[in-house]
C-alpha cells in the first residue's frame, strides 16, 4: 500500500529541511522516494500547513525495570486520581509520575513519541526491564546496561586487566542484557556504598578496589569507542545533587580523555556552593565546558514543579537524600554484586529556593549550550518531572515571555540568583526537532529513524500549528508508527507493539569462560540463565530485537 502525506511543512534537520512544504510517501512501513506517476496512491493525507516531524525519541526515560516497579509498589497514591479507563481499543492503567506500562506507552504516542530508551538496565534485572518495555505499547524501546559498579569490572580494572579484556566484557554485557548502550551511574560509588563509603568524588579511591571514578570513566568510554558502539558512555556523574558538584562534573568530562561521553541529567550536576544558602548555579561553567569540547553531549533532566518520585541506580545519593522524601517513605536496594537502586518520592516547590534554582539551572543549560545536536530534551522522567511535562518544557524554551512570567513566580532569591532573565534565546521548531528527533537518533546510531528521508521508518508526528507550542506538542493531529496511523487528534486509534533496539559489537568469546567461572563461584544464577537470547526476547519476553550497526563493524 502506498500512502502520501501532502502539503505539510517539514522540519527534518537530519536532511537540512526547515519548514519547507514537501510531500512524503510511505510504503511497507517506510518512507520511500516519490513513485512514478503511473503508481496508484492508495491513501492521501492532506496536511496543508501542518507541522510534520519524525516521531520523537526520548533517549533517557525510566519506563521499565525493577526500580520503576518498586516505585509503583510503594506509591499507590501516584495512581489514584490519574486513572485511565479502558476503552474499546486500549487497556486500563494510569499513574502520574510512574504510570503503568500500558499508560506510559499510550501517553508517549499521544504526544508524538515513537521510540524511548530506558537508561538504567541492571544486567541482573534486564529481563524485567525488557518485559516491562514489551508491555509498553506503541513505542520502540531499548536500554543502556549499567556497568561500573559491578564487582567483576571493578576487580578487572583494579587488577590492571588489559583494555581488550575490558572491551570484551563490555561487549558481552551488551549482548547478554540485549542493550544498545552502556551507562555508568556514580562510577564506583554504588559499589563503595556497599562498603559503607558515603561519598566518592572523581579522584577518590574506592575503599576496596583502590581505583577511582576517573579510572572507570576512562576505561568504559574508551571501551565503547574501540568497540564502535555508536552511543558514547552514558554517565550519571559523581556527587549527584551535592552543592559544589560542578567540579566533579568538569572532572568527569576530563576523565574521558577525549573519548565521546554523554553526561546525563546534567542539571543535577551543575551546582555551586556559593551564596547565603550555599547553593548556586554553575550552569555557565558547565555550558562553557560543553561548548568547548566536541566529544561531550548532555541531556538536561529538567525539573518541573510538583509531585514526582526520584528513582535511580545511585543508592549512595538516594540514601543520602532520603530525609527529603515526600511523602516520607523511601526504598533502597543492593543488587547482585551488580549495582543497586533507590526510590525517594519528592515534591519540587517553586517557593523553595533550591528547587526554584534547580528549575532555573536546567533552563540556563538549555539556553547556554550552543549546539542543539549535543543537548537533549529530558526531565530524566520521572526524576525531574514526569515525561508528560515535555510540551510545557518546549514552550519554556520557545517563548521567552512565558519563561520570564514564570520566573516571576518562583522564590525571589532564586530568581535573583539566576541569569535566566537575561537569556534572550528562543528555540525554533527546527532546533526542537533536532533535540527531540534528529540528534537522539544520531547519538544512538539509529539510522532508520529521527528523520524523514526515503529509507527511514515511517514514524511520523503531524502537529497543528499553534501559537502556543505547549498546545501544539501535547496533542498531535496524527502519529504514524511504521506507516500506520496510531493516533488521531491526540487519541489512540490503533494499538501497536514496538521492538527492542540493540547493538552487537564483536568480542572475543573467551571472555565468557572468565565470566562463567565468576558466576559459578560467587553468584546465585548460572551464566546460562543470565544471558537473554533473541528467541527468548521474541517468544518469552515479547519483543523482537532490531540490531543496529556498530562503527567499523565487519558484519
Amino acid at each position, binding site marked *: 500500500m502506498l500512502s502520501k502525506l501532502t502539503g505539510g511543512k517539514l522540519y527534518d534537520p537530519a536532511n537540512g529541511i526547515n519548514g519547507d512544504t514537501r510531500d512524503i510517501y510511505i510504503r511497507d512501513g517506510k518512507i520511500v522516494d516519490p513513485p512514478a506517476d503511473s503508481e496508484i496512491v492508495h491513501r492521501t493525507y492532506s496536511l496543508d500547513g501542518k507541522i510534520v516531524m519524525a516521531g520523537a525519541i526520548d533517549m533517557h526515560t525510566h519506563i*521499565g525495570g*525493577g526500580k520503576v*516497579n*518498586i516505585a*509503583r*509498589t*510503594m*506509591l*499507590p497514591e*501516584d*495512581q489514584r486520581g490519574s*486513572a485511565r*479507563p*479502558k476503552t*474499546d481499543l486500549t*487497556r*486500563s*492503567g*494510569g*499513574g502520574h509520575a510512574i*504510570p*503503568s506500562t*500500558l*499508560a506510559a506507552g499510550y501517553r508517549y504516542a499521544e504526544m508524538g513519541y515513537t521510540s524511548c530508551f530506558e537508561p538504567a538496565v*541492571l544486567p541482573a*534485572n534486564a*529481563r*524485567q526491564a525488557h*518485559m*516491562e518495555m514489551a*508491555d509498553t505499547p506503541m513505542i520502540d524501546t531499548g536500554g543502556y546496561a549499567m556497568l561500573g559498579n559491578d*564487582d567483576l569490572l571493578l576487580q578487572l580494572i583494579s587488577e590492571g586487566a588489559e583494555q581488550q579484556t575490558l572491551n570484551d566484557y563490555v561487549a558481552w554485557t551488551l549482548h547478554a542484557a540485549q542493550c544498545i548502550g552502556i551507562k555508568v551511574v556514580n562510577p564506583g560509588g554504588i559499589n563503595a*556504598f*556497599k*562498603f*559503607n563509603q558515603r561519598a566518592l568524588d572523581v579522584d577518590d579511591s574506592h575503599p576496596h578496589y583502590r581505583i577511582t571514578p576517573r579510572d572507570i570513566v576512562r576505561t568504559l568510554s574508551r571501551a565503547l569507542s574501540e568497540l564502535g558502539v555508536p552511543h558514547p558512555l552514558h554517565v550519571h556523574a559523581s556527587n549527584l545533587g551535592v552543592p559544589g558538584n560542578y567540579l566533579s562534573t568538569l572532572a568527569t568530562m576530563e576523565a574521558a580523555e577525549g573519548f565521546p561521553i554523554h553526561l546525563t541529567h546534567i542539571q543535577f550536576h551543575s551546582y555551586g556552593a556559593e551564596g547565603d544558602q550555599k547553593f548556586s548555579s554553575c550552569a555557565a561553567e558547565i555550558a562553557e565546558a560543553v561548548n568547548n569540547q566536541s566529544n561531550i553531549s548532555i541531556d538536561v533532566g529538567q525539573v518541573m514543579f510538583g509531585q514526582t518520585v526520584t528513582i535511580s541506580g545511585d543508592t549512595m545519593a538516594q540514601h543520602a537524600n532520603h530525609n527529603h522524601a515526600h511523602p516520607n*517513605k*523511601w*526504598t*533502597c*536496594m*543492593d*543488587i*547482585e*554484586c*551488580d549495582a543497586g537502586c533507590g*526510590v525517594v518520592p519528592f515534591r519540587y516547590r517553586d517557593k523553595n529556593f533550591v528547587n526554584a534554582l534547580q528549575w532555573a539551572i536546567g533552563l540556563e543549560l538549555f539556553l547556554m549550550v550552543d549546539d542543539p545536536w549535543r543537548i537533549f530534551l529530558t526531565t530524566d522522567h520521572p526524576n525531574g518531572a514526569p515525561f508528560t511535562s515535555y510540551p510545557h518544557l518546549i514552550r519554556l524554551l520557545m517563548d521567552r515571555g512565558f519563561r520570564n512570567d514564570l520566573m516571576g513566580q518562583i522564590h525571589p532569591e532564586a530568581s535573583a540568583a539566576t541569569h535566566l532573565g537575561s537569556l534572550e534565546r528562543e528555540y525554533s521548531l527546527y532546533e526542537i526537532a533536532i533535540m527531540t528527533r534528529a540528534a537522539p537518533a544520531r547519538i544512538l546510531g539509529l539510522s532508520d529513524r529521527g528523520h524523514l528521508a526515503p529509507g527511514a521508518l515511517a514514524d511520523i508526528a503531524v502537529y497543528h500549528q499553534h501559537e502556543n507550542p505547549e498546545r501544539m506538542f501535547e496533542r498531535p493531529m496524527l502519529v504514524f508508527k511504521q506507516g500506520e496511523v496510531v493516533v488521531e487528534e491526540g487519541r489512540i486509534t490503533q494499538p501497536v507493539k514496538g521492538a527492542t533496539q540493540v547493538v552487537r559489537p564483536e568480542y572475543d568469546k573467551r571472555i565468557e569462560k572468565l565470566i562463567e567461572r565468576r558466576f559459578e563461584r*560467587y*553468584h*546465585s*544464577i*548460572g551464566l*546460562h*540463565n543470565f544471558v537473554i*537470547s533473541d*528467541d*527468548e526476547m521474541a517468544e*518469552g*519476553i*515479547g519483543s523482537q530485537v532490531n540490531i543496529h550497526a556498530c562503527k567499523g563493524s565487519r558484519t
Partner: protein
Amino acid sequence: MWNNEIEQMMDAVTCPCCGLSCDDLKIEMSDGQLKSIQNGCHLARAFYDTAFHHTDQDPMIDGRATTLEEALDYGTELLRQARSPLFAGLATDVNGMRGILALADRCGATLDHLNGDAMFRNLRVVQDNGWFTTTFTEVRNRADLILLVGSQCIDRFPRLVERVLHPEESLFVETNQRRIILLGPWQQDDIPTELAQLNPTVIATDIESLSDAAGLLRGLVADRPVDSDRLGDDLGNSLTALAEQLKAAKYSVISWSAAELTMAHAELVVQSLVDLVKALNAKTRSAALPLAGTQADITANQVCTWQLGYPLRTRLQRGYPEHDPSLFRWQDLLTSGESDLLLWVSSFSSLATPPPTKTPTIVLGHAGMMFEQQPSLYIPVGVPGIDHRGHWYRSDGVCSLPLGKLRDIGLPAVSLIVNQLNERLLPFADEPESAPAC
C-alpha cells in the same frame, strides 16, 4: 529455540518450587519420563514427581469429562454472565499473568494471589514506609552477620544454607567467620542440621513476642530510651547483645519469611525489622532479605504492578484499576458473597485447590488436582518449567529466571487458555452494555 526443543539432559534447570529458584538442577529425561534429578531438594523432587505422575488432560464440567473446545465455550459463558468475578490463586508464570490481566481488564475482575495474606504483611510496610533490601548474591559475598527471624526458613527454603547463607566461596568475607543468629520459636534440638552446622546463636522467643523483640532491637540501635528488662532478663540481655553486634557488623542481613508470621498484625513485626535495618544504615551497612516467591506470588505481583500500576488486591470492575489491600482479600470476597464467579489459577501445585464455595468456580489447575467439591469447570493446565517455557521471579523480586520445558504431552499453558477465553469474549465487547461486565 525458546519454544520447541526438548533436550534429554539438562544441567541448568530452574526449579520453580520456592523463592530460592535454584537454577543448577541437572535433569535427565528418558522417553518423556523423568530419569534423574541432581541438586534439587526434597521439595523439588516431590514437585517434579507429582507433575510427571499426572498426565490427565480432560477438562471437566461439573465433574464430567468434556473436550477443551466445550470447556472454553462454557468458560466464556460463565465469564460473560459474571458481574463481579474474582480472579484468585494466580500461581502462574509471567505470560500466564499477562493473559490473566488482559482478561481481568475485559471482565472487570478483582485480583488476589493465594499467598496474598503473606505478601501484604510485607507490601503494607513498603506502602507505608519503603524498605531497604538486598539480594542473594550480595548476601553470599558481603554479609558478616545474618539474623534469621522465625523458625521455618529451612522448611520453606530448603537449600538456603548452601545457596545463600554459607556458600563454598565468598568475595569479601570468610564464610566461616559469618555470624548466624536465629531469633524465633526455636527449640535447641529442632534446629535443622545444615543450620546447626553454622554454629548459630539462638535467641528463643515465641512467635507472638517477635514484635516486641524487633521493636526493642530497633529502639536499641536507634538510641531510643528502651526498657530491655520488659521482655525478661534472658531475652532482654540477648537482644541488647545482638543490637551491639548489629551495630558492629559491616554488612548485616535481616531475613524473614512473611508466610510464617501468621499472628494478627504481623506487618508490625515487619515494620520493626525494616525500621531496624534503616536505623542501622545511618552508620553502618545493613539490608533486609525478605524470603518469598512460593507459588509465583512475587511473579504475579510484579506483572500486576507494572501493567496496572498497583500491586495485587486490585479490582478492575469500574473499568480502571482500584487498589485496596484490605477490602480485596480473596477469602473475604468469597465468603461474603461479593463475587459471583471465581476463576482460580494454580499451575504449580496439585494441592493448591480452591476452597469449597457456593460461588461458581472455574479452575485452571495442575493436572493432579483432587477436589473436595467439583468446580463448575476445570481445565488442567501445564506446569511452567515442565510443560512449557516461561519466566518466574525469585524471592528478591529482581531476578526473573527462564523456566525450561521438559516434556510435551499437550497440557496447555495458562496463557494459552486465558488468551483463548479473552478472544472468545471479544466479539461481544463492542455490544452496548450497561453493566460493567464482560
